[in-house]
């Protein structure tokens, strides 16, 4: 492990990579701060920039963007009560009341320190957990991987869909259907191309991400532009107050951070669960832990109530890298985007990444520490200035997002069919979003589609077409039982609500 850490440090501490972490954290903070634009959009917009980089540099940039976007999301939660991402909704519960009391600067500082601590502690967990899990996951066979992917897709549908499990599962199927367009990987038979040469290689992952996130988010903002509730939100950027945290508040944070970090990391590791669930659970857990007097302050500007979700959502970000780096299976929509980008670099994450590309494996982990430090020392003093980005008029913001989306696709293919296709998919995605059809399950399914078909093919060929492979191995059976439990729980909770 020491050797790995040194490899990681030597890569992550190169001048280019430190610069990339800084650029990533800064750009991520700005994009994440804008209400409606989250880490997936931020990472998607960065993909064209990473085309010229080597894989570790590209991944380091994207990891920086991820942390920056989560941190930026908490800024708009605290100042505007308009969370940039779902993972920072719980931050607004106590952060916004603090801002209303004239302590916005203090709330932002508490959020920054908690994010830093949560991210750093969980990066240590990742350092220990990832290599061990990599060794364990070498025992995984095709049926286990297939079952694991089914579990991941079911879990993300259950957790990301606001009680609309069926809608999310429909998005999963749609994502898998889109992934089957183009040549079959084994037989080279073309499928669903309708004699269009542009579809022979399949639909590009970047195109799908840009269309369903960057472009459709921009179109949604425009679409809802005249919504009075949204238009009414105004911000006073001049009265942020002091960013100093006193001794009593530091002690409160010190109590909250360790337990929220552990919870956040564990939730982040689970497939499908992520920063959102981690932050809500941490908020609820913290409320149960504190004394009666502190409990009364929750929702009115409690330090515990602000620190817990902020710590947990950053810890969950590190946790979500565990399944990506060790199994090659992303646990969340954001890490699915990163997996797609990695595949674009010709890197297949998984248990062997640890052995075949140790510099990538370790440099990403080490860059997380650097990213946390950068976030703290770069962003905290700059918050009053960065916060002004919230005042950027949408008249400039939207065209620039569209410009980055189109450029990303143009750089990749140099044909206009892909741009037309992206616009078409973005329009469909915008309407689907309006009616609460979630997009993260679609992205995860699209990314996993090829691998899922491959593992199903191997499993069925080995078992000679029999479905026995689903219960022959104990690991497969356990994973499938967990999946069935999740589906059963969704059905049970739906009926319970109705009654």
């Amino acid at each position: 492990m020491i050797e790995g850490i040194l490899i990681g440090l030597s890569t992550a501490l190169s001048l280019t990579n430190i610069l990339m972490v800084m650029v990533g954290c800064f750009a991520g903070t700005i994009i994440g701060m804008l209400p409606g634009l989250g880490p997936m959009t931020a990472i998607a917009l960065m993909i064209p920039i990473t085309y010229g980089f080597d894989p570790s540099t590209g991944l380091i940039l994207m990891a920086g963007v991820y942390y920056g976007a989560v941190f930026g999301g908490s800024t708009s939660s605290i100042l505007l009560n308009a969370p940039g991402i779902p993972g920072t909704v719980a931050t607004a519960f106590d952060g916004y009341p603090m801002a209303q009391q004239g302590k916005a600067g203090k709330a932002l500082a508490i959020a920054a320190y908690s994010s830093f601590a949560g991210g750093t502690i969980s990066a240590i967990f990742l350092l220990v957990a990832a290599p061990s899990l990599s060794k364990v996951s070498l025992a995984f066979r095709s049926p286990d991987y297939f079952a694991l992917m089914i579990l991941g897709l079911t879990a993300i549908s259950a957790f990301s869909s606001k009680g609309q499990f069926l809608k999310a599962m429909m998005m999963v199927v749609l994502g898998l259907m889109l992934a089957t367009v183009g040549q079959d990987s084994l037989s080279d038979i073309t499928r669903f191309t309708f004699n269009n040469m542009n579809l022979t290689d399949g639909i590009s992952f970047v195109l799908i991400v840009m269309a369903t996130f960057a472009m459709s988010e921009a179109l949604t903002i425009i679409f809802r532009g005249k919504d009075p509730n949204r238009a009414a939100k105004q911000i006073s950027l001049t009265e942020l107050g002091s960013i100093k945290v006193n001794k009593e508040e530091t002690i409160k944070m010190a109590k909250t951070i360790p337990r929220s970090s552990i919870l956040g990391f564990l939730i982040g590791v689970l497939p499908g669960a992520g920063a959102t669930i981690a932050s809500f659970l941490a908020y609820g857990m913290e409320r149960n832990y504190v004394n009666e007097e502190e409990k009364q302050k929750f929702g009115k500007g409690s330090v515990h109530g602000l620190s817990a979700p902020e710590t947990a959502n950053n810890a969950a970000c590190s946790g979500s890298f565990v399944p990506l780096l060790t199994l090659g299976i992303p646990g969340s929509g954001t890490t699915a985007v990163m997996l797609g980008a990695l595949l674009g670099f010709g890197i297949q994450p998984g248990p062997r990444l640890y052995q075949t590309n140790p510099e990538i494996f370790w440099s990403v982990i080490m860059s997380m520490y650097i990213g946390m430090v950068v976030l703290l020392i770069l962003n905290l003093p700059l918050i009053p200035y960065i916060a002004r980005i919230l005042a950027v008029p949408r008249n400039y913001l939207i065209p620039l997002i569209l410009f980055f989306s189109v450029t990303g696709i143009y750089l990749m293919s140099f044909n206009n069919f892909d741009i037309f296709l992206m616009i078409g998919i973005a329009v469909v995605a915008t309407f689907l979003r309006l009616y609460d059809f979630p997009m993260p399950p679609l992205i995860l399914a699209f990314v996993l589609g090829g691998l899922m078909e491959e593992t199903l093919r191997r499993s069925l060929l080995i078992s000679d077409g029999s479905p026995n492979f689903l219960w022959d191995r104990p690991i497969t059976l356990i994973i499938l039982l967990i999946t069935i439990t999740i589906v059963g729980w969704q059905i049970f909770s739906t009926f319970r609500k109705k009654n």
Partner: protein
Amino acid sequence: MRISPTKFISLLFLVLSVFYLYTAYNIQVFAFDENAPFNARTFPIYLGWAGIILSSLKIILPEKVTAEVNHKHLDYKSITYLLIISLIYAAVILKIGYFISTSLFLFASYYFLGERRWGLMFILSFPFVAAFMYLLHGLLNIYLRDPFLKYIGVMG
């Protein structure tokens, strides 16, 4: 009878799944692969059936309304303009090149979204795109095809 938008979308998804399944059954596979436990048709066929089952359930089961969309507040005009500009942009990007088409796209988008500060609109279109192209092509060494700039000798 009034059908809710969610059920209408599910109905469209059902139609899509039926069409997908029909196409999946018609995928041409090699003769020796026809009766194999897994061929190029297998996975799409499973997906087609999954789509039909899920969308049918969504149509049949009673709906819990989560997304109340007030169509009066949706800005159809701006989005239509923006989409038309985007389609024109996509159509001309290969013919007139990246620099001019992108700069004009940005300028037109700012205008149709209601911006009238001409100086700022200009800076955030032509010089901005030029700077971005320099970043990609000049600094990051990412090839950016632009026949127009090549023709006038700006790009190699």
